[in-house]
């Protein structure tokens, strides 16, 4: 290909990494991948593992599809993409079962649901099919990280307000059966908000994040 040699981290390539974090975030701007954002953000740990899994799948599938993009017959390209994504997800599932059994039990069906995560297929169709491996890699990193950012943010608020913990550690003090035995905030009569543990609150949290982001980021304000 007679393409002009472009530096690895040209301005354009850096935008591939940073755009999905804010201006073009897959969750808060494109509103993709919401289902998993609702389901596994009760605690930080599964949210983080899910993010890493999605990050891996989106990067790997982006690069693979980009490498063979000129070979894929147009008529079956969606099936080919699905096949690649599905096999990568099975790989992740198998590896989690072998090396992170507890996490795999917690994520259970949601690992399988990465296949249906619209972010992955969306990036393959919209980007990897038309761009080279390096750009696709950056695009995968960017979008995976954009997804992870929102997921971790939502999980942070849900775990903190819902169970008073972060990564399972009691941040706000220990809640015992009686007020006298409790420590920290709980000794003053603070109660966890059980609502935060339910799925609707994830949706509301995502909504609040979108609100804050739109009021800060001028580019996103629609007239």
């Amino acid at each position: 290909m007679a393409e002009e040699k472009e530096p690895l981290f040209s301005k354009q390539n850096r935008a591939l990494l940073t755009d999905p974090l804010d201006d073009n975030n897959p969750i808060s701007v494109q509103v993709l991948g919401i289902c998993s954002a609702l389901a596994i953000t009760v605690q930080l740990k599964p949210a983080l593992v899910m993010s890493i899994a999605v990050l891996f799948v989106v990067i790997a599938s982006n690069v693979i599809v980009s490498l063979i993009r000129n070979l894929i017959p147009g008529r079956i390209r969606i099936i080919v993409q699905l096949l690649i994504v599905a096999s990568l997800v099975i790989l992740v599932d198998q590896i989690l079962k072998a090396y992170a059994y507890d996490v795999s039990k917690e994520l259970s069906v949601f690992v399988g649901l990465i296949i249906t995560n619209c972010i992955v297929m969306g990036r393959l169709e919209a980007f990897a099919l038309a761009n080279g491996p390096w750009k696709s890699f950056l695009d995968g990193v960017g979008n995976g990280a954009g997804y992870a950012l929102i997921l971790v943010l939502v999980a942070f608020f849900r775990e903190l307000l819902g169970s008073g913990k972060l990564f399972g550690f009691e941040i706000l003090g220990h809640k015992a059966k009686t007020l006298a035995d409790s420590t920290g905030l709980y000794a003053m009569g603070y109660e966890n908000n059980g609502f935060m543990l339910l799925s609707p609150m994830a949706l509301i949290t995502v909504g609040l994040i979108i609100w804050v982001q739109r009021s800060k980021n001028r580019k996103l304000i629609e007239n």
Partner: protein
Amino acid sequence: MDKNSNAYTFIFAIIMVTVIAGVLAFTATSLKPLQDKNVKAEKMQNILGTIGVTGVSRDDAEVEYNKYIKQVLALKADGTVDTKVNAFTLNLKKEIKKSTTEQRFPLYIAEKDGKTFYVVPLYGAGLWDAIWGYIALDGDKNTIKGANFGHKGETPGLGAEITTDWFQAQFAGKTLLNVASAGFTTDNFVSVKTVKGGAKTGDAHGVDAISGGTITSDGVSNMIQERLARYLPYFKNN
């Protein structure tokens, strides 16, 4: 070759599928031993949990298991022991489908602080799918020491609550026999039941069912009743 021809599409699909199948088969086979080890360790953790040995990490499970579990028996329907079968690897799901005379049910005999406990594995049906668990009995084979349950697909927040501590803790101290001294006969065996609306204080054979999880709760009752009844001949003779 024309990329839009049927032949190209077919060849591409065939190569693609073969390569992917090979990669997946290789991964699945090479990771299988590690995965099986995890499943086995979890089973040991569950068994230990019912006799009050909790907080064992999965890495230590095998050591702790060998420390407390003295014997694993494969029982026949008449209460005698089948020595030809490896009781630990018995798959209850498959055994239940066999005829009564061919079934072998595992019994784990544990020793902790000089006392003997009998751990019985359970398997039954909930609302949507299978439920299972372990129940440990004191040396008198009548008083329950502890129980834990698992499920495949019960409703989160309702039926799935059978895995919570509060539900499982209720079983400790309950008794299986109507009159303890009357022995292990079918008439005297009343099992433990989940009671809709809450068990009465002092009910020796009832625990609170889960609100909104009635069918799963009933499934737990039936599972315990059905499984434990099969151990009566052994309990009577030993």
